[in-house]
């Protein structure tokens, strides 16, 4: 295993142009190959944090490093490299899938990274195979089920061979079987994963470690099982296990 962490965030603070401060000094290190759940109430700054990881939000104060490289939104070329390394799967697959066919959608990222021809084709097929959607390559994404579109959205970023895969609410709107199928795909991937989620059972199933972001700072960072068994901690950040769910 590589000794450079996939993600290092130091003292990251950020305020929106309207003066609203969202992050108040976030510190987080994630090693290569780890799967970490990022939990927290609505409005805690989870999305803001994620959009710092690939330089969509410029770093105002503090530092974000991906595989050792500082994210600098002013350096356009470096930014392109960073965005290849950080694959974000957004919550609504329709935001991510806009090309006429599944295959073209998967090719979009690698094409922007400069891949062409045979190599591009190979990368596309590989990514589709990883999520079990190869046979849908020539279909318009619009005709797929929601669960299939979510899987294609995952493939669009896998095709960029990311150092770190960030998934925003991966289980939302999935029926139970699609939810499990996606879990199996996630478990089969050999990549660092940050999973932003409200679905605490899903976090427990897939991530060894969890962090809670609340009020713009990391308030807890521990094994998922420990965090989920601390009811007081959960309750004070508007989190709770669903009715009927027990930690075995």
């Amino acid at each position, binding site marked *: 295993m590589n000794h450079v962490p996939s993600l290092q965030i130091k003292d990251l603070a950020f305020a929106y142009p309207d003066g609203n401060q969202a992050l108040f000094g976030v510190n987080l290190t994630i090693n290569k190959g780890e799967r970490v759940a990022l939990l927290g109430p609505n409005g805690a700054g989870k999305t803001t944090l994620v959009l710092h990881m*690939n330089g969509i939000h410029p770093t105002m104060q503090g530092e974000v490093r991906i595989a050792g490289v500082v994210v600098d939104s002013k350096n*356009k070329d470096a930014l392109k490299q960073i965005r290849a390394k950080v*694959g974000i799967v*957004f919550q609504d697959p329709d*935001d991510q*899938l806009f090309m006429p066919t599944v295959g073209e959608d998967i090719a*979009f990222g690698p094409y*922007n990274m400069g891949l062409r021809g045979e190599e591009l084709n190979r990368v596309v097929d590989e990514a589709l195979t990883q999520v079990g959607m190869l046979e849908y390559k020539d279909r318009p994404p619009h005709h797929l089920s929601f669960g299939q579109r979510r899987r294609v959205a995952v493939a*669009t970023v896998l095709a960029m061979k990311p150092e770190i895969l960030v998934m925003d609410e991966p289980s939302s709107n999935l029926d139970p079987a699609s939810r499990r199928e996606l879990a199996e795909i996630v478990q089969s991937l050999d990549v660092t994963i940050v999973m932003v989620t409200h679905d605490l059972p899903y976090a427990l199933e897939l991530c060894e470690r969890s962090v809670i972001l609340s009020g713009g700072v990391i308030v807890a960072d521990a094994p998922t099982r420990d965090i989920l068994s601390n009811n007081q901690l959960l309750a004070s950040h508007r989190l709770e296990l669903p009715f009927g769910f027990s930690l075995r």
Partner: protein
Amino acid sequence: MSVSTPITRWPAFVAFFLILLITALLSKIPLLLLFKRALIEIPFIFFAILMPFFGTGEKFEIAGLELHREGLLAGTSIVVKGTLGVLAAVILSTTTTAREILRGLERLKLPTVMVQIASFMLRYVNVISDEMERMKIARESRGFVASSIKHWKVLATTASALFIRSYERGERVHLAMLSRGFDGNLPSLDNSKATLRDWIVALSLPSIAFFISLFFFAIGW
């Protein structure tokens, strides 16, 4: 009012400008915001600046530049009138909520369907532009930078995805309306009648402007 006043009667325009400024101050609009939003006018100012160099009629020279009197007047007229119009519109839109504007349109007897279309547009403009913003972030996250003509295709496919989403939302909204007993008539937004006082307040600005132009016309400026 300002549109129909000839540009040569310039003191009238100074007065118009002062009225708008006073209105803005009375409605507590930060002047900086007012002028920032008025920047939308810039393309036409460029056009107007070019005017004195073209056209016909009397010529004269300023600082070595050959200018046409007609063009200069017309250019100034456009800048001045356009600026007044933009300032008035900005004042209207910063002091009046979208909803009040809709009510106003309804009161001005704009056809009901048009008011409804406008109302749906105002309701969903944030929803759709949020979708567009999220799509943009998703594109950029995969290394896309809009920089050259070959990227038009990407923007066009984004537009098409956006159309499908907008149209399908329209269909779902229609279903939701039907489910709550919609039979073609939307409830009127306007549940209060305009009072005499409202009309007086509403007409005060245009009438002050009217008297100013009458005054300067009368004294023959």
